[in-house]
């Protein structure tokens, strides 16, 4: 039970600054997801909170207490690693109870806490096994168990699902969400997967090149991206970007327009706001993705209901969208507020 505060946190490796001042306020019990492409600094940020990387400048506070210079063990946190980081020479029980033994907790209490965690994570039959005798999903659960039993103030997750197969990832995603809700522990979760970010987060932070571009509730971020980067990163397939000059009746003042594939629809050639030629379409069943090429040579994607007829490849088409569906950006890639 704690809050987590980051104030103007910066990180420099030698001469290269990788995090350019991040401010975050995490409420007690909140689930925050940091999402961004590889190399945006999201893992570094998490490792700074964990105490595995030094903080170049700024302040990190857990429950109001400045932790910048504390060792990881003194910060009252627990972390789940991407590769699980289980102790290979210890049984599942020893893995989970390692931190408690070091804290010199009485044996009965250790046994009790491990039993509770094992029950919660359905690990009871495996307590005497070694990590190498477990499947990927079970290893993930042991790593979770190790974090849970210590009852930390803050949970840190570093891409915990990226080593699992697609089906297991969906299942574990739900389990993590349910577990976090049950325990009510403040959590910081790093991922490059926008689906995880959208589904898990109470609030999400979109990181781009060492800067937190936007912090907000997932649906707010989706509906009102603050920058061109956020608009392009959140949402699948990605937002189409076009210069206003290419759009009939475009608003003035914007340097670029963003149109989400799900907001655009095809019309007859010659009508609509833009013209394009269908290059190919992908029928996914429930929906169809239609890829077009604009006269400028730029690609454009339209997402339409799977029941609608598929256009013939090589056909010219019109592209249209409802008024107000376009997202306007200035020359620096920042959102222009609607008048």
């Amino acid at each position, binding site marked *: 039970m704690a809050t987590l505060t980051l104030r103007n946190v910066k990180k420099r490796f030698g001469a290269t600054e990788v995090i350019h001042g991040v401010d975050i306020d995490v409420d007690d019990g909140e689930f925050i997801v940091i999402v961004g492409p590889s190399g945006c600094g999201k893992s570094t940020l998490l490792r700074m909170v*964990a*105490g*595995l990387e030094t903080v170049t400048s700024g302040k990190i506070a857990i429950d109001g207490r400045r932790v910048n210079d504390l*060792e*990881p*063990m003194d910060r009252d*946190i*627990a*972390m789940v*690693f*991407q*590769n699980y*980081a*289980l*102790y*290979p*020479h210890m049984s599942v029980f020893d893995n989970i109870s*390692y*931190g408690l033994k*070091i*804290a010199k907790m009485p044996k009965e209490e250790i046994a009790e806490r491990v039993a509770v965690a094992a029950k919660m994570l359905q690990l009871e039959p495996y307590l005497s096994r*070694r990590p190498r005798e477990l499947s990927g999903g079970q290893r993930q659960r042991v790593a979770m168990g*190790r974090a849970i039993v*210590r009852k930390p103030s803050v949970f840190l997750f570093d891409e915990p699902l990226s080593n699992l197969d697609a089906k297991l990832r969906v299942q574990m995603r739900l389990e993590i969400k349910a577990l976090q809700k049950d325990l009510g522990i403040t959590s910081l979760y790093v991922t490059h997967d926008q689906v995880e970010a959208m589904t898990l987060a109470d609030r999400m932070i979109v990181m781009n090149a060492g800067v937190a571009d936007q912090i907000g509730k997932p649906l707010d971020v989706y509906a009102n991206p603050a920058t061109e980067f956020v608009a392009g990163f959140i949402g699948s397939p990605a937002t189409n970007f076009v210069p206003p000059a290419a759009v009939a009746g475009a608003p003035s003042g914007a340097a670029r327009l963003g149109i989400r594939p799900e907001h655009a629809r095809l019309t007859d050639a010659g009508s609509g706001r833009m013209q394009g030629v269908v290059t190919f379409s992908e029928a996914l069943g429930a929906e169809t993705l239609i890829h077009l090429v604009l006269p400028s040579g730029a690609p454009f994607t339209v997402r339409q209901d799977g029941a609608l007829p598929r256009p013939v490849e090589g056909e010219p088409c019109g592209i249209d969208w409802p008024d107000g569906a376009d997202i306007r950006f200035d020359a620096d890639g920042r959102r222009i507020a609607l008048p």
Partner: protein
Amino acid sequence: MEKRVTFKGWTLPLCLLLPQVAITAVFFFYPAGQAVYQSLFIPDPFGLKSQFVGLGNFNYLLNDPYYRASFATTAVFSGLVTVVSMGIALYLAILADRLIKGAGTYRTLLIWPYAVAPAVAGVLWMFMFNTRVGVVTWYLGLLGYDWNHVLNEGEAMGLVVAASSWGRVSYNFLFFLAGLQAIPKSVIEAAAIDGARFWTRFRTIVWPLLSPTTFFLLVVNVVYAFFETFGVIHTITSGGPQQATTILVYKVFSDGFVGQDLGSSAAQSVILLVVVGLLTVIQFKFIERRVHY
């Protein structure tokens, strides 16, 4: 599954095996056979004829207090060389593993002593500790310590142990460093977050995960101390004073080639062969039980 290459006839595999088999036969089986054969005879002082004595040589050796003392000397010597060289190597490897800048330079410098032949290393240490002209002896003298390994048995043992361990540290360092670097960083970090400080992490995580390397080095170092330290001992102490540094291998040489008792020397070789065989078997059994995780 294991991949096996299947040959059609016998000629090619035999030809491929021949060089290794020939070398083993000429340099191992033949001399070992000769040793076993000779251990059953006592040659006359001029080497003209020899007399069959059965197990007489062995019987005499096992009742010989000097030979028994040599066993103890060997145990002390190889134990010390192994512990000293592995201990220092592990310490240096831990330091080098934490290093980010200049790690390559340190590593290269630490590996150099391994390139020095044992006999040359022996001569180096002999000059440094020479009782008359040695640099170290002179400084020890200034400090009021009278170093004389020619007379003092403890000092003699210390010196050959130091000289034998010196080059060995490099070899052990390489393996320990590789072993340390093979431990995933995140496991160490997880332990740090779990509350383990450096020494606890080392004791509960690093040391157990390093055990395959440690056991391998244990075997290799004991075998080294048994056999390959001959050059060092020969150049520094020649087994003295009063046989204080006469390890089994050195006794094989001094009894056979200096004392001209070829029968006894051969019998000692056979005993060494058995001892090393046993040592290897025991250590590998131990490894199979302990090291797997």
